[in-house]
């Protein structure tokens, strides 16, 4: 790690006023310190936000929940209100990382994880995300874990989070505060596709701090399921993951959410596919059509073509499991 200065502000205003181009906020540190040890991130100043009052989970007047950005991944997954009302989120969080990392990692920090692309993590090779304009070795290199949807010539990296896939499906909102004030970003707009600026993972301005994640009132808890497919049974990043949630009247679908992880630069949702599910009956054919439609524009690289078939099957299975799932399954 390179040497750096350290500050520990006591409130959000102080924190955002300490920001400089060479500073980074730190909370759990599980990704940032790893990147610093690999010399991928070289901040000159760390702003420790763990002293800020952002640790509560509170009910909103709209019937949803406001989750402080510093709530740990473990505390969030096992929070009684999350387990009860948003089991999809609990499942997704518990499918990610290890118990130790979940005890350390914060809710806000989970959104800001960098990709696990091998080339991004290797300072000896070019990478457009790390050094804009330097090139993308993954496009022609080892790209088994890379994107099949929404990639660009410049970047084929995927977003590594499980939690974010569930938050995308649940229509979460990201509350942020900068020097100029606070704003709310819809989850679908928070992360970016790589386009020609893959160095930018999300829409946060440099001086903005995530303060909370808001969940809208839930009507999908009874029929949701998070399915994660990975190379080993635990503690590995997703090759493909699916957050599926349905609202049913009898066996007729009245609302549907489908988000995919491991396949794109951000959690992948397709509103047209979700809309097409509404009014349909629960059946393998219905779910199979949804999977085909969602993946129709998928583009394989040399080594990740299997992900398209895997994603198709995972979507069908996740939706089928969601359709029969109870609130506590």
């Amino acid at each position, binding site marked *: 790690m390179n040497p750096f200065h350290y500050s520990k502000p006591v409130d959000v205003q102080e924190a955002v006023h300490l920001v400089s181009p060479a500073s980074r906020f730190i909370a759990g540190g599980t990704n940032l310190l790893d990147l610093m040890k690999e010399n991928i991130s070289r901040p000159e100043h760390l702003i*420790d936000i*763990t002293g800020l009052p952002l640790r509560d989970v509170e009910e909103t007047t709209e019937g949803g929940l406001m989750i402080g950005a510093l709530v740990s991944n473990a505390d969030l997954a096992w929070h009684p209100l999350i387990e009860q009302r948003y089991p999809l989120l609990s499942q997704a969080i518990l499918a990610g990382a290890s118990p*130790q*990392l979940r005890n350390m990692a914060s809710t806000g920090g989970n959104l800001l994880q960098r990709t696990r692309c091998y080339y991004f993590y290797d300072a000896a090779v070019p990478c457009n995300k790390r050094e804009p304009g330097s090139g993308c070795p993954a496009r022609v290199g080892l790209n088994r874990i890379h994107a099949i949807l929404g990639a660009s010539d410049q970047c084929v990296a995927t977003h590594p989070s499980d939690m974010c896939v569930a938050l995308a499906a649940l229509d979460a909102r990201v509350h942020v505060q900068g020097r100029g004030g606070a704003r709310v970003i819809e989850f679908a707009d928070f992360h970016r596709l790589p386009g020609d600026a893959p160095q930018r993972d999300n829409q946060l301005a440099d001086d903005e701090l995530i303060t909370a994640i808001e969940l809208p009132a839930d009507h999908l808890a009874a029929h949701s399921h998070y399915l994660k497919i990975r190379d080993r049974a635990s503690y590995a990043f997703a090759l493909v993951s699916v957050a599926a949630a349905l609202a049913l009247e009898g066996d007729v679908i009245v609302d549907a959410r489908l988000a995919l992880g491991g396949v794109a630069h951000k959690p992948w949702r397709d509103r047209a596919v979700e809309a097409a599910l509404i009014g349909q009956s629960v059946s393998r054919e219905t779910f199979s059509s949804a999977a085909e439609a969602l993946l129709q524009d998928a583009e394989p690289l040399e080594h990740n073509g299997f992900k398209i078939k895997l994603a198709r099957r995972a979507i069908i299975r996740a939706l089928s499991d969601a359709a029969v799932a109870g609130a506590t399954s």
Partner: protein
Amino acid sequence: MSATHTGAAAKPFVSHPIRMTLNRRDIQMDVLPWTTLLDLLREQLDLTGTKKGCDHGQCGACTVLLNGKRVNACLTLAVMCDGAELTTIEGLASGEDLHPMQKAFIKHDAFQCGYCTPGQICSAVGLAREGRAHDTAQIQELMSGNLCRCGAYNNIRDAIEEALPACRAQGGEQ
């Protein structure tokens, strides 16, 4: 470390005072911001029971109990532990009386080379406190952050399974 300058306006890097309760003993020291908790324990406090395996949060050999919760010391900055209560493998036993989890690891021969063992035991004590492992499959899943290159997993699992009730009975002791 002496002051380092990167430009005309550069400020010198400084140490920061921290206070911790480490294995039931209050300590106070100055740390440089980039010192990890793992390096502080091993290099400055001579507590080498906590092991450095991967140094990237992937193996769990550095697992310690920070404010009662299991964490990777390699991905924790010492400067951020000001005011914390920390238990390492050296702090689990009471004198000559081993912690129930330590006794169970010995009874079940739950190690071969022993390098991952302190992290496994601290992690298992953290697991017991969390109270979320109710069967063998849950123990295995919730111990996935601790790798054993010797492959002593079956004995580790058996040791934890046996020690969990005794650890729960001990409650918030450690």
